[in-house]
């Protein structure tokens, strides 16, 4: 369980407060207007920001300070892959950031690539992959790392609607099978509905506790209502 205990992040004039819990294995959409603090929340959980107050607990234990030691993987909006490394290296680096792969670990990385349907692309470079395939490579690394928490920062926003839906579905399956707790920042209510069971509304510097996503969209509170406008799903 992820527990954000009266956390507060300060960025110049902007501040974000979060006091909430996310149960293990939940898939949670992070929604809200631009500039409301969605990215700040994700960067805080990732460990890129140092909180001004409060603490973060994972299964009752304090989160390590260093992002690399936190029990999580991240899929960024872009720059998930190093362009000059092969797809295999890019994936394996999630297991061995020192890049000293044992034979067994290499086999593991290849298996992860197989699992996302990129078995034949191990020796290719990211520039040879389509947008969807790049997303899959990122997912292969998430699989390989086997960290219990996954942060997604609009990872498929640049893809076309059909491909995006497909990637979201693959991600959902992977997350579900591995029992990973996932937080996904998204601008698209439809994506939130298809991927997540819960939603955290982040607006005006405050992250609300996660609420079941269906009822939330059916009866949106004023802040969500004004964000959605007439585009409510």
């Amino acid at each position, binding site marked *: 369980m992820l527990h954000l205990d009266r956390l507060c992040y300060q960025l110049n004039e902007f501040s974000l407060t979060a006091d909430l819990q996310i149960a293990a294995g939940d898939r949670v959409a992070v929604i809200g207007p631009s500039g409301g603090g969605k990215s700040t929340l994700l960067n805080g959980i*990732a*460990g*890129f920001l140092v909180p001004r107050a409060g603490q973060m607990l994972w299964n009752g234990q304090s989160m390590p300070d*260093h*992002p*690399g*030691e936190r029990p*999580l*993987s*991240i899929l*960024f909006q*872009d*720059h*998930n892959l*190093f*362009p*000059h*490394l092969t797809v295999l290296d890019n994936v394996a*680096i*999630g297991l061995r*950031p*020192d*890049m000293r792969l044992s034979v067994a670990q290499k086999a593991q990385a290849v298996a992860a690539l197989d699992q996302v349907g990129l078995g034949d692309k191990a020796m290719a*470079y*990211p*520039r040879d992959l389509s947008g969807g395939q790049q997303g899959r490579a990122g997912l292969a690394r998430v699989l390989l790392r086997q960290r219990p928490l996954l942060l997604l920062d609009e990872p498929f926003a640049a893809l076309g609607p059909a491909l995006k839906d497909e990637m979201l579905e693959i991600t959902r399956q992977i997350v579900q099978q591995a029992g990973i707790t996932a937080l996904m920042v998204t601008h698209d209510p439809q994506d939130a509905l298809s991927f997540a069971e819960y939603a955290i509304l982040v607006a005006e510097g405050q992250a609300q506790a996660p609420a079941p996503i269906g009822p939330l969209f059916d009866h949106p509170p004023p802040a969500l209502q004004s964000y959605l406008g007439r585009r409510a799903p």
Partner: protein
Amino acid sequence: MGLFSIDRRADAARYGSRGFPACLLTMPHQLCCSIGGRGRAKGTTIELAIYQAFRLDFDLGKAASLALVQFTICGAVSLLAFLVPLPQTDGLGLDRVVQRLDGPQHRIWDGLWISVASAFLVLPLGAVLMRGLRHMLEVPPQIFVASLTSLTIAIISTALCLAMALTLALAFARRGSLARSLAEATGILGLASSPLVVGTGLFVLIFPYAQPMAFALPITASVNAMMALPFALRVLMPAVRETYGDYLHLRMSLGMGRWIWMTRILAPRLRRPIGFSAGLAAALSMGDLGVIALFADPDLQTLPLMLYRLMGAYRMDQAAATAVVLVVQSLFLFWMFDRGGRGHATLR
């Protein structure tokens, strides 16, 4: 005639036109020395006046004051040139080849302008080359030692320049814009102070204690490194900054250590700008006739100095032949370093 300056002009053109006025101001010494010969022409540049105060009058006080004037003027111009922000040209995301979206008419115009600019370089250069090639066999045997001296200085000064530029870029690329400007201002000092100005200063410093001639080589190498520093910084700083900006979070989340980050990520990503800066630094050093002109004793000479001395003795055929050797070596050094930066198959 324009031979010595050719490296610098080519650099300025490749590097962005902003460097051009500053380069013009820092280069006239070589040009004027060659055109004005050794006579005391009435119309001189400050640089030539410094040189004359030095070599002809040996009036160190006068040379130092003139150096100060030159430094101030160049500093002001350099500062102006650097106030204009440099456009980002290298945002290639995934290292794919960027496609040109402008039409063929732009290509024609580009081609035309490049041809005109090239003609400006190629015609005088061609004249020297034609003459030089005919007299290749008359070149004095000292050319071997002079070449070796020039190459040694160029390679040492390139290494020094890269070490300084990389240190500064790595230390400051992630800081705020003010800190970055300060770091680049360090580099501007190199532009503001022409080799001759710095050479004058060093000579004044060393003269009371030791024979400055004894330090000719190390001083030339380090001053040349400083001259190339602003160019190297301008190339490296954005590259370092971009790499950190794009991949710092990924690195942190993967828990990648400093060594792997430096060797497996930063080094390959910076390979191109490093190769290009090294090429610039080496070519600049090869063509330089600043400090060495002040410090060298008659037994010691670099290729440009040998060329200058030959011209001073009106042995124009041999001078042209020496020029051919100088051009070939400078181009080769630049090509080698730049090529080294591009050679990596996965970074094409």
